[in-house]
């Protein structure tokens, strides 16, 4: 690996380097001129029950029920799941399938909430985290619906489960490397103290020794504000570190590498290597959950791109994106809306879809700011993609395998180490949608593995059934054979002359039988008399 690179800042710490990376135009200044504003209460909220990685939450509110702000409406279902709450007080008017922000453009289960405007809170319980066990705190986070706000929306409580691994370093991710997005930047500028307190809570739960807060050096205000908060809070072994601005330096694996030198491979949990990483906004949310008893009901979202007033807003989960777009005032040539950044985001199927926990940025798109890609040419194996790949992969080979559906070879060439950052596509002179090929290959492989598991299960069940049928047949045959044997034995016994005693017994039985018959006969006759009378 390459040696640490000197970074032009006042860090005293040795930083590491990851391979590749790109420097796309950042376009961040547009949305950082104004402070975070609170978005007005919309007329209707649509709250998806699946806003996190894992299983959809089970709806626990009824249609027509009045709910309070912060009331649980979706119960976590399964290990990887998280809770969903009413973002404000009002009435649940529907629980049905609605279009959501997902690249598939398919609907999913959502609860529709019509606010009553009272913002009436459900009872909130503030806690001192130091009085609780880490496991108890984990459960509180799960029930508060806290998920990673950096984009993947992975339930935060699961990232705090440790298998006796000692955590040395807690990394707080404030790098925010994607162009256009500034929600973490503004949060760090304005609410640094709460982020730092959230970090302290995370440190407590992980029992981590040191906290490293990584922020890209293109955010001097955020760095200053966070440093001031760390100093003011008197936090020991907590350091705000300016990291070089390079995309995808905000990827969890990349940031961990830059700050600690540790490389976390795909399929390996970073806790196994003594480090864990959380987004700054997640730390802020954890602070709100513990210190204020507030579940995750809102988040900071950047509205930018082709809009008149790019800005960051604190928006309730479930707010239709259209409301946010209206605040930013989209320009007339806007043709679509992107959720996320220009590198990893995706176009929304409709501007009416609700904002979810993972929505960090909405970019109004036009042909001017995102011109359509030039015609795709064949790969000429120039390896510019390999030069910029932060996972040290060979994207040109993976493309070749994915294109020809050679999934086994794609996997052998470490397809699943791809973080889909898009740096390869960004530099490709043939303009090949490389990441799209990798996503395709990955989901095909997942589907096949799933099918394979089902087939194996079916085979086992079929074999069991065959065995059972075989066994039953055998048992029946055995029983038949046994009966046959018994009958034979009886016949054999019949052939023997009876002893005098046996003959006497038989005669006795016969006489008593005759007596019974007689009695029965008379009873019937009496009964007949009875009925004729």
């Amino acid at each position, binding site marked *: 690996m390459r040696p640490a690179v000197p970074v032009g800042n006042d860090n005293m710490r040795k930083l590491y380097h990851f391979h590749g990376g790109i420097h796309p135009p950042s376009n961040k200044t547009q949305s950082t001129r104004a402070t975070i504003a609170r978005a007005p209460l919309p007329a209707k909220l649509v709250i998806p029950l699946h806003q996190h990685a894992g299983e959809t939450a089970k709806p626990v509110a009824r249609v027509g029920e009045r709910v309070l702000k912060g009331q649980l409406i979706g119960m976590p279902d399964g290990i990887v799941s998280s809770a969903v709450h009413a973002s404000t007080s009002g009435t649940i008017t529907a629980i049905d399938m609605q279009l959501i922000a997902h690249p598939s453009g398919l609907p999913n289960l959502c609860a529709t909430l019509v606010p009553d405007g009272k913002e009436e809170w459900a009872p909130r319980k503030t806690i001192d985290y130091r009085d609780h066990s880490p496991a108890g705190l984990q459960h509180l986070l799960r029930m508060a619906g806290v998920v990673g706000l950096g984009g993947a929306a992975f339930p935060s409580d699961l990232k705090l489960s440790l298998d006796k691994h000692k955590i040395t370093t807690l990394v707080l991710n404030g790098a925010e490397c994607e162009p256009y997005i500034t929600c973490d930047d503004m949060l760090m500028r304005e609410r640094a103290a709460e982020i730092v307190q959230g970090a302290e809570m995370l440190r407590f739960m992980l029992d981590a020794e040191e906290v490293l807060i990584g922020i890209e050096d293109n955010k001097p205000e955020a760095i200053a504000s966070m440093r001031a908060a760390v100093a003011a809070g008197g936090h020991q072994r907590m350091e705000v570190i300016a990291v070089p601005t390079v995309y995808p330096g905000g990827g969890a694996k990349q940031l961990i590498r830059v700050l600690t030198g540790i490389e976390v491979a795909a399929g390996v949990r970073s806790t196994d290597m003594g480090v864990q990483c959380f987004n700054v906004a997640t730390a802020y949310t954890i602070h709100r959950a513990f210190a204020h008893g507030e579940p995750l009901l809102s988040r900071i979202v950047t509205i930018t791109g082709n809009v008149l007033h790019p800005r960051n807003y604190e928006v309730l989960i479930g707010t239709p994106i259209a409301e946010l777009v209206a605040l930013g005032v989209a320009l007339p040539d806007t043709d679509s809306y992107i959720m996320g950044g220009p590198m990893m985001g995706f176009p929304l199927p409709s501007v009416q879809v609700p904002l979810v926990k993972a929505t960090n940025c909405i970019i109004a798109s036009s042909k001017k700011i995102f011109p359509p890609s030039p015609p*795709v040419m064949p790969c000429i194996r120039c390896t510019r993609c390999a030069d910029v790949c932060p996972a040290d992969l060979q994207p040109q080979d993976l493309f070749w395998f994915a294109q020809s559906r050679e999934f086994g070879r794609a996997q052998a060439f470490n397809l699943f180490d791809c973080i889909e950052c898009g740096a390869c596509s960004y530099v490709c002179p043939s303009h090949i949608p490389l990441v799209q090929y990798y996503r395709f290959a990955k989901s095909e492989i997942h589907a096949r593995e799933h099918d394979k598991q089902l087939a194996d299960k079916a085979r086992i069940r079929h074999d069991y059934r065959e065995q059972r049928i075989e066994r039953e047949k055998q048992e029946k045959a055995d029983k038949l054979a046994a009966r046959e044997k018994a009958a034979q034995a009886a016949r054999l016994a019949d052939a023997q002359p009876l002893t005098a005693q046996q003959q006497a017994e038989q005669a006795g039985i016969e006489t008593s039988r005759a007596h019974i018959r007689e009695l029965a006969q008379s009873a019937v006759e009496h009964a007949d008399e009875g009925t004729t009378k």
Partner: protein
Amino acid sequence: MLSALLVMSAIAAVLGAVLGFAAIKFHTEGNPLVDKIDDVLPQTQCGQCSYPGCKPYATAIAAGEADINRCPPGGEEGIRKLAELLGVEFKPFGEDAVPKAKSLAVIDESTCIGCTLCIQACPVDAIAGAAKQMHTVIASECTGCELCVAPCPVDCISMQVIGEKIANWKWKYPVYAMTATT
């Protein structure tokens, strides 16, 4: 001349001994090819191949008695895998065997009379119920083989296509205007 003959026969003897030893030492029980073929088959146990199950079909393929294009649930992908495994040419489905969309058996529980005929027909025990009791398909175990449909005396079992949902949605193969790279 003689020495050459001796050398050759000595080599032949040694190689023969090695082969013989290997045959005993590395002998495997059963027919690994059948298992390999069975591994590729989708295990619906539907009998559409005209064999009573996946394993018998695999055995027939291994014996060279059956074609590789007799398994509609496996799809063309399955034929391709079999062709690769056996080193033969890909062969498209005939007219009598056309793959259908993956589906699930569903019992109309208001019509079900609890006759247990479907339970006996199900090759993977994916139907729960008892005599005179309503039956239910265990969705996660159903292979969509359709074998339960025919025996039902009241026609209360229907096959429902599994549609695309977020949970099973897949990223598509990228399609773009120019066909340069295909």
